[in-house]
Every structure is written in C-alpha cells, then in structure tokens.
C-alpha cells in the first residue's frame, strides 16, 4: 500500500544550500512534470524525512551544511519507509573513490556539476526508472 502510494506521488525532495543550483533543479523538476519540495540544507531534509516519506525521489547536494547529502541518504537507507526512495547526488567532486563509496552506501545516481538542462533531464529520468524497476 505504501509502495503503491509512493509510485503515484509526484513529489521530489530537493536539498541544496546553493540558491542558484536549487533554483535550477527546482525548475528542471517542474519541467519534468513533478512537484518539487525544496529545503535549504541536509538538516532540514533530515527533519522533513522523519515525518514525511511520500516522495518519488530525492535530489541532494553532496556537500551541505549541518548534514551532508551522503549522511541524509544513509539515514534514508536505514529506515524501512524511506529506503526505496531513489537518491540523486549532485557533486562537483570528480573523485572516483568517493563515488564508489557513495554507490555502496546507496546513492542511485550522480549528477556532476556543471550540468545542462538536458543532462539533468536524462539523469532524472534514469533516477525514476530505477524507482519503477525496484
């Protein structure tokens, strides 16, 4: 029942402390026909996720104040009601080891900065396809 509800929701959680990237991602998600739910940092994402699991996907910046993207994602992977929400991690670190560790921790897909509208769109669709397959 919970899974069914989640498949139907069009809400996407976005957490990024950078107002420019946040504005871009919010618009790109809207253009894809989804409903952005936007918070300014990892701490706010964590607090929201403690009471709200109704998200089709989540998009986090890797490096955020208070709680980094990877820590929010680890919390999600430890909670049954959140563990199947796919997570896109935005990063400007071309660090393969970091990416490998992040995949191991449960990141679904990475979007490297800088990115264009098209690159976001392709990555976002892969994120949601992953969700449908699982």
């Amino acid at each position, binding site marked *: 029942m919970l899974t069914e509800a989640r498949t139907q929701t069009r809400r996407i959680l976005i957490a990024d*402390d*950078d*107002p*420019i*990237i946040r*504005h*871009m991602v919010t*618009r*790109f998600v*809207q*253009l894809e026909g989804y409903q952005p739910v936007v918070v300014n940092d990892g701490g706010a994402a964590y607090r929201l996720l403690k009471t709200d699991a109704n998200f089709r996907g989540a998009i986090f910046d890797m*490096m955020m*104040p208070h709680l980094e993207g990877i820590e929010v994602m680890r919390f999600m992977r430890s909670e049954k009601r959140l563990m199947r929400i796919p997570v896109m991690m935005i990063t*400007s670190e071309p660090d393969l080891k970091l990416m490998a560790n992040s995949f191991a921790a449960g990141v679904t897909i990475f979007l490297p*900065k*800088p*990115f*264009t*509208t*098209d690159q976001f769109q392709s990555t976002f669709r892969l994120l949601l396809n992953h969700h449908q397959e699982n």
Partner: protein
Amino acid sequence: MSLTATETQPVDLAILAVYDDAQIEGEPDFVVELIDLYLNEVPRLFDTIRKSVANKDRSTARRAAHSLRGSSANLGVLQMATIAGELEHLENDYSNVALELLSSLENEFERVKEILNAERQRRSA
C-alpha cells in the same frame, strides 16, 4: 597556481544561454533570475570566506569556496570557478594564499558583474 590568469573569458554566455530551454512561457526570464541570484550570492560567499579565513575555520571557507565553484561553473563564470576551486583545495600556507585567492576572485567578480549586468539589461529590454 594561476592567480592572475586572464586568457579565459570571464563569462561564457553560450553556457548561460543553454538555460533558455528551461524558460516557461509567461514566467519571468529564467536566465535573468539566475543572474540575479548569482550577483546576490557571490558577495555573501566572499564575506563568509573572509570571516572563516580570519577565524581559521577552514571547513566553512572550503564549503563556501565549493559552493562558489559549483554555481560559477554552472553559469559559465569559468575563471571564477577555477580560482574558487584552487581556494577550495588549498592545503598549505593557508591564510595568506587564501586571502590572495579571495582578492583575485573579487577582482574577477568586477569584470563578471559588468558582463552579467549587460546581459541582464539586454534580456530585460
């Protein structure tokens, strides 16, 4: 390290123009919104970097430089993205070099502001 490199264009407007495809009809110009956010955000980040360097708070300075690098690169502000990357990844001789890099960023931002304000005006005309 290239504190004064000037070969790169301050702003690659072709990168900025890519975001025209995210324009929604009837909404304010999306690229102008991005320019305004950037012009407001950069001085705030400079301030954070200056205070963090003075307080020897490398973690906060690094985070602000990281944010500056990411948003600059995304908007085609390439030289600032490069210098912010140098600042973000500084390891040795921290304070002096960090302040030199901040000064380079501030000088570069003067050039960037002129270009972005002109682009803003062109789009608002």
